[in-house]
């Protein structure tokens, strides 16, 4: 089976997945205790007439499955309703903050890949030397330290003591500005550290395993330079097992952004989500949770395609 057909087939599987995710999201948000009406009216007593009107406005008087169908059909066109707190369209609230989180997430993922893969390769090639030991210590620390603590430490060292970064993000410049991009490095490193540590060790062990395989000896016996043997033959096969885990890291980076955005007062959708969950702003909460779900599905889709590209044996 060709790669194109594999991509198509794998793409079709995402459709039921997306439906499932939307149902789960909707169901969970509606299972949260507390009546949204109370938050809309700020817990004031209402006469039944007004309450009915408000419920009708948000569709809360309909049976749950009707509410779900309405929500999904609207969501498919990009309409997520209005926030019950700000009364603004949910879509515009998200669009305003999404670029911040996207840039931070991409940066975090980039930092992870750029550091984890080469250091993993080096640690594997020089296994059981000082270099390998050092990477092991770093990996242990990186996995052990909680996000919020690392974030605070980075702020303390680089923003407070060394004065290289401002304490608060320079949001007035917008995301596409030098200052903001530089500042975003801090939360990006904070989120990426755990994943870096994990991927680095995974890369190392995968590489060590591949280095011992017979085809490496074949490649050397062909007289290829050691660099070609490692970069062409060993790396590609080692990446196969790393790619899947790297895709799962996307989910960790997204969930990590929720905490880290609060630590750094970062104006992304993670902080928005935490705010609105507290206020039972169900249209915003639903939309963000759905968005996160879609992002994870997409990441897995990309991982599977990459996997098939790297390993020809799995295109069945």
């Amino acid at each position, binding site marked *: 089976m060709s790669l194109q057909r594999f991509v198509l087939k794998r793409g079709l599987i995402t459709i039921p997945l997306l439906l499932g995710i939307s149902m789960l999201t909707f169901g969970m948000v509606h299972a949260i205790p507390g009546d949204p009406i109370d938050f809309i009216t700020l817990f004031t007593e209402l006469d039944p007439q007004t309450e009915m009107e408000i419920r009708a406005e948000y569709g809360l008087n309909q049976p749950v499955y009707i509410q779900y169908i309405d929500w999904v059909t609207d969501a498919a066109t990009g309409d997520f309703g209005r926030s019950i707190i700000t009364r603004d369209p949910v879509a515009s609230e998200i669009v305003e903050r999404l670029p911040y989180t996207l840039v931070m997430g991409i940066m975090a993922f980039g930092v992870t890949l750029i550091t984890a893969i080469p250091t993993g390769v080096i640690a594997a090639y020089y296994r059981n030397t000082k270099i390998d030991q050092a990477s092991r210590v770093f990996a242990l620390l990186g996995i052990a330290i909680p996000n919020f603590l690392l974030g605070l430490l980075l702020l303390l060292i680089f923003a407070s003591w060394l004065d290289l970064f401002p304490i608060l993000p320079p949001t007035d410049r917008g995301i596409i500005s030098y200052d903001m991009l530089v500042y975003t490095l801090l939360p990006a490193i904070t989120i990426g550290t755990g994943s870096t540590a994990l991927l680095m060790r995974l890369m190392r062990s995968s590489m060590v395993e591949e280095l011992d395989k017979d*085809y490496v000896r074949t490649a050397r016996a062909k007289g290829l330079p050691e660099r070609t043997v490692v970069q062409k033959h060993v790396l590609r096969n080692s990446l196969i097992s790393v790619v899947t885990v790297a895709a799962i890291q996307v989910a960790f980076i997204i969930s990590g952004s929720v905490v880290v955005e609060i630590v750094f007062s970062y104006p992304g959708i993670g902080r928005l989500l935490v705010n609105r969950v507290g206020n039972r702003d169900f249209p915003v909460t639903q939309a963000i949770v759905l968005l996160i779900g879609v992002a994870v599905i997409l990441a897995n889709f990309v991982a599977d395609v990459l996997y098939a590209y790297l390993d020809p044996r799995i295109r069945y």
Partner: protein
Amino acid sequence: MAMLEVQDLNVRFYTDDGVVKATDDLSYRIEAGERFGVVGESGAGKSVTSLALMRLIDEPGVIESGEIRFKGENILEMDEEEMRSLRGNEIAMIFQDAGTALNPSYTVGEQISEAIRYHLGLDEAAARERAIETLESVGIPSAAERYSDYPHEFSGGMQQRVVIAIALSCDPDLIIADEPTTALDVTIEAQILELLEDVATEFDTAIQLITHDLGVVAEFCDRVMVMYAGHPVEMAPVEDVYYDPQHPYTVGLMSSIPRIGDDRDRLQTIPGRMPDLIEMPPGCNFHPRCPYAEESCTRVEPRLVDVETGDPADPINSDAQTAACLAHTGELTGELDYEVTVQGEDAPTESGPASGTSTGANDR
């Protein structure tokens, strides 16, 4: 000067348990176009010998001393760059298990043509063409289409043909085949050996064939070296070894081949096991398993000698039958008391034995 001369090669493995003498003062030669067999049990040092020729021995193994002269140049003194230009180009290797020797994530064509591009400096298209020709020469049908198939799309026998194609791709002068048929079933084994024979003749390539299968050696080789515990115990033209084995170990190996029409109930074996390479028995390494061993065998280490004259062997310059047993230097009081019977209608001739017709019967 022979094409390949190995002289006093010592390969050691420094393990936590002690030093393993994988080969001990090993000397032999291979002439251009010759087929040289290396026979022995697992752990006799056969594979280490071949990896040493490629300088591909992994840690903790080291080539401690000796010389490996290829076309007169000592490859142990070459720098890595020179060595690489030899590997895959003038000396190529065929590995035992083709299923794992090929990289699963590149097409077989790429795996052949990358060496061609590297050594012969051909461009993509020319290398592809040459790779397809090589695939054809090893008997892969519709080679042009199969060029872009992956190893898992080939059967075991076809994979081994691909591995042979890789070895042949740059037209080497010496191919080291390390048990090339062990992982294959018998019918495929015959095909692969035939193929090796054909290409060796066609390209006039010398082959060092490593095997534990004496039948394969009889069919394929001109000369043979029998190895035991890192030492050559017998080295001779193949017909001499088959019709007139001169070392008890060779005799033991021969008589352990089961034959059709044999009425023995049990398979003949050589009693005991190969010695621990870290703590070798004193004297002759084989004496604990040897039915003819005497007291002197536990003291005196036999050297490889000419079995006719008893003079020290000269494996680099001479073709004489040599064996490392005290019986040939007169230090044994008894004699190697066995008799060789030849079965079948073919009598031994100068041109070589008909395959599988000789029996070394051990009359203990």
